């Protein structure tokens, strides 16, 4: 069937090969479903942006230990992870804050099960300033006066600080409201007062440190594990005027001297079983805890470890 004036270039063989290619693609996609070479179980962890790096390191190492189990890690914030857990779309939620009572209530109402939480490490929340900032320590009151609603500190000169690069106005760097870090800072440093408007709210722990590193007049809070030596400085923090300021280190966070340390949690819906249980146990084992330390977080204290083995 040739139409005068046109050259029909598509041969029937083209259609056949196109069809074959299409079928092949479908089969490929299909067999991806049945015969994945690694097969096995997948564990889904979702939640805290603070914990994605340590969760990623766990997933990487656990794959070596148990090749049959593949751990998927995604972020979004503690709130996002908990919401997904309550909807039953993930196995484990990672959270850098405690479960809120209303979330526990929701879990009971929608799923009829309790949320179980497991402490898997600790994180010291560091207050970062630019490396060139002469400030060395800061107290809770000053932080609250900077970050909270109704605060009065807006300029570095109010703290008696001159920024070498110029710029006196304090650039406050904060987090998005679904972040567990945001909640924790609000609860423990701002005394549950709301954040003042006008801060730069970043979507990740690393972004906070990056912005502070690039802005001489900035101050922000983020996990101790995100420290970039030479570009930013971690301030010593005092829990109240007159009380000693403590530098964030592994030791001070473990001993409880450093005032803004928090627990890192993995949450499950109901009592974990099977592979989930095995993974949680491994995370709290010496191997899992070594990874916590390597990632710049604080491992479980000896007391917590002891309680763990006693409970089993």
């Amino acid at each position, binding site marked *: *069937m040739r*139409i005068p*004036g*046109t*050259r*029909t*270039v*598509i041969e029937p063989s*083209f259609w056949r090969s196109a069809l074959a290619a*299409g079928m092949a*693609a*479908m089969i*490929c*996609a299909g*067999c*991806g*479903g049945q*015969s*994945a*070479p*690694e*097969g096995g179980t*997948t564990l*889904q962890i*979702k939640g805290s*942006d603070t914990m*994605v*790096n340590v*969760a*990623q*390191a766990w*997933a*990487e190492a*656990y*794959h070596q230990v148990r*090749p049959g189990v*593949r*751990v*998927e*890690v*995604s*972020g979004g914030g503690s709130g996002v992870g908990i919401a*997904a857990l309550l*909807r039953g*779309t*993930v196995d484990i939620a990672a959270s850098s804050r405690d479960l809120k009572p209303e979330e526990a209530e929701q879990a009971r109402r929608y799923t009829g099960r309790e949320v179980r939480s497991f402490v898997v490490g600790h994180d010291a929340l560091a207050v970062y300033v630019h490396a060139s900032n002469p400030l060395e320590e800061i107290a809770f009151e000053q932080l609250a006066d900077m970050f909270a609603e109704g605060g009065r500190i807006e300029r570095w000169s109010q703290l008696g600080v001159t920024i070498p690069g110029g710029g006196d106005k304090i650039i406050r760097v904060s987090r998005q409201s679904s972040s567990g870090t945001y909640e924790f800072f609000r609860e423990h440093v701002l005394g549950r007062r709301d954040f003042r408007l006008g801060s730069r709210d970043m*979507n*990740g*722990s*690393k*972004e906070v*440190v990056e912005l502070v590193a690039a802005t001489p007049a900035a101050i922000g809070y983020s996990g101790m*594990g*995100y*420290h*970039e030596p030479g570009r930013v400085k971690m301030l010593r923090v005092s829990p109240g005027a007159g009380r000693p300021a403590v530098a964030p280190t592994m030791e001070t966070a473990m001993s409880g001297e450093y005032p803004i340390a928090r627990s890192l949690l993995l949450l499950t819906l109901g009592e974990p079983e099977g592979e989930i249980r095995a993974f949680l146990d491994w995370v709290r084992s010496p191997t899992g805890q070594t990874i916590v330390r390597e*990632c*710049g977080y604080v491992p479980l204290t000896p007391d917590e470890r002891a309680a763990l083995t006693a409970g089993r």
Partner: protein
Amino acid sequence: MSGGTASPQPFAPTAGLLARRRRERLARGVFLAMTVLMILPLAGILGYLVVRAWPSLSWSFLVEAPARGMREGGIWPALVGTIDLVVISLAVAAPIGVLAAIYLNEYARDNWVHRVVNLAVITLAGVPSIVHALFGLGAFVYAARLGYSILSASLTLALMTLPVIIASTREALASVPRSFREACWNVGATRWQTIRAVVLPNSIGGILTGIILQVSRAAGETAPIMFTGAVFYKAVRGGTLLPYRLDEQCMALSMHLYTLATQVPNVRPSIPYATAVVLLAVVLLVNAAAITLRLRVRTRPKW
């Protein structure tokens, strides 16, 4: 006019002609400048990326899994994830889109239903990808109970590319002159025979181009897959050909680039750039394939 002779040459350029030539040169210059200006950013981006990425670019970067908290190793799981997502989303969107476009262009009468469908297609094509992402989360992840998975993510991408495929296919079909169809009908061919023998052969190039351009779009999108099935990290051995099941989540290049840039502390700066180069290379390869394919099946209508 030189020499100051009294008798003007008969074909000497008049003032008007000179002015026209000047304007012509000016117009040509402006258009050329704009064309060059358009190439500059592309060359700039490519050059900058490759230079920054150079220390990390290697074969092992392609085929290895990320290691040591993504600070070392390669991007294999993300590369395969992106390919999976794109292939499955196109396998869904392309047949539906092309067939729907054929119906709309060849069969549908011009009545109010047709106009509403048209409007729907155009509107859907203009919906921002983040809205598609939210819809995918609600419809596929939660309502259809597919969970966070490659399937959810691919279907979301398919939904996003579908209206554009319909629109571009319709354009291609509409470029076949009506007289061709009429000639065919007049010798007694049915509509389907006409479509198969006349309309499709004359428009296949345009249809394929439209589809393949959507590959680059699907490969580059982050929002729809971030909400529905792309993960920050998944433990996968490097070099395995089909590391994912359809009901699992996967890593993807665009998402990987985002997490490298926003989450991973103290990462070597060349790694995010190398990831960007690979993503760009995938898109360019697909586009090159589109051009080759189109050249091979191109019909050269002489009307």
